[in-house]
């Protein structure tokens, strides 16, 4: 019942499978936070960009 998977077992299969899933989710989550965070910082700093 750990980590975050009902039938979690401490074996190689679960480590690889769930490990890769969490890695991908962390990368995507971090990427989104960086993008939104940087946009917010730019906004507060008064920076502007031209229309793409």
């Amino acid at each position, binding site marked *: 019942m750990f980590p975050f*998977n*009902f*039938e979690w077992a401490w074996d190689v*299969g*679960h480590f*690889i*499978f*769930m490990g890769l*899933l969490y890695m*991908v*989710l962390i*990368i*995507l989550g971090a*990427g*989104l936070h*960086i*993008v*939104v965070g*940087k*946009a*917010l910082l*730019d*906004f507060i700093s008064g*920076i*502007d*960009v*031209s*229309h*793409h």
Partner: protein
Amino acid sequence: MLNWNCDKELYPDGLPRCSLAKFSPVVLIGGALLTWGAIGAIICLGYGLNKTGMNDYFALGLWIVFDLSIIALGAGAFFTGFLNYVVGRKELKDVINAAVIIGFICYSGAVAMLGIDIGQPIRGWFIFWHANVHSMLTEVTFCITCYLGVLLVEYLPLILENRVAQKQRFVRLLSHNFHEFMFIFAGTGTFLSFFHQGSLGGMFGVLFARPFSFREGFLIWPWTFFLFIWSAIAAGPAFTTLIVSLTEKISGRKLIPYSVKMFYGKVSGWLLLTYIIAKTIDTLYWALSTLPRMGVTFHSLYAEGPYGLWLVWLELGLFGWLPALALVYPKVRKNPALLMWAMVLDVLGVIFNRFVFVIQTQAIPVLPFEKFMGYMFTIPELGIAVAVIGYGLLVFGLSYRYLPVFPREKELNPVEG
């Protein structure tokens, strides 16, 4: 009086679009197909999956053929993203937005259709919570869901680039930063797409009790794992080019330089040629070595029923070798009509391959008292499949109308621009 240009404030900057009256067939056809799909979904969810052609012989039917096909055809998105952001082929910037939209339509359509296919969508989360880590299908589910998220992230900055939205400074900054960090998402998308395209093929290759689809392989991956990736990246760019060319035909405007289409033709051609060589070797090895060792002969698999040997000739010959040889030949690529025809055959080839693996695998008897079967879909089942086409028509049509999908459209159409 009705103003048929009341939405012109939303058009991309400096680009003309047809009136709403001219655009209405897109909405009407798309809406009609979606309505058919909605009625089909109500019937299939309300009365059960026995309203489809699926039965005890066919656990997978038209929807999975459609799913696997559109997922393969949507590979243009990840492959274009990989070539553009990771390899650095900057000329693909002209087509990357269209590839992302097509990929998003394909993947979201496939996930929606799978929601009906599982019978009880309310239990869809079971596959994540009760993950079977030995199942390629679980891996496919995880990767497709995550990749759909990636495609949404890749589509979002384009939506933010709508002329009205861009009037807000924060929206401009957000879309700008999405572009700046897009390599993170494109790279992750490549990883996800690579694995689920492969696992979709691997799913069939590991079916030891089904000699028709069983293949030997490398470590835990049967050869079908690699062949599915290969065929998807050969057909995906061709499908993207065909959709863009169709949009050009309908809109009467040039949207991407012909050199991009030729480049895509060259990429598709060489990938298809190497794929079809590998596929032919795989088929020969399977027929001459794998099957005899499993106690089955090649001809016995095509002995009866609707799916005869002609399928092999069509898949490998007409939809395989012919477009592959045509696309690698520069003179064919320079001729727009021939290039399009070769790409149509390329796309049909991947659809045919997915049909053979899904349907023919299940049509062949595995018990002595069984007979060869044929699959026939029902009208509600067909409705759900074609609803994805209607959905695609609407999403792509609206995106083209209101978003700057093709960055060089103005430059390529100087008179109107």
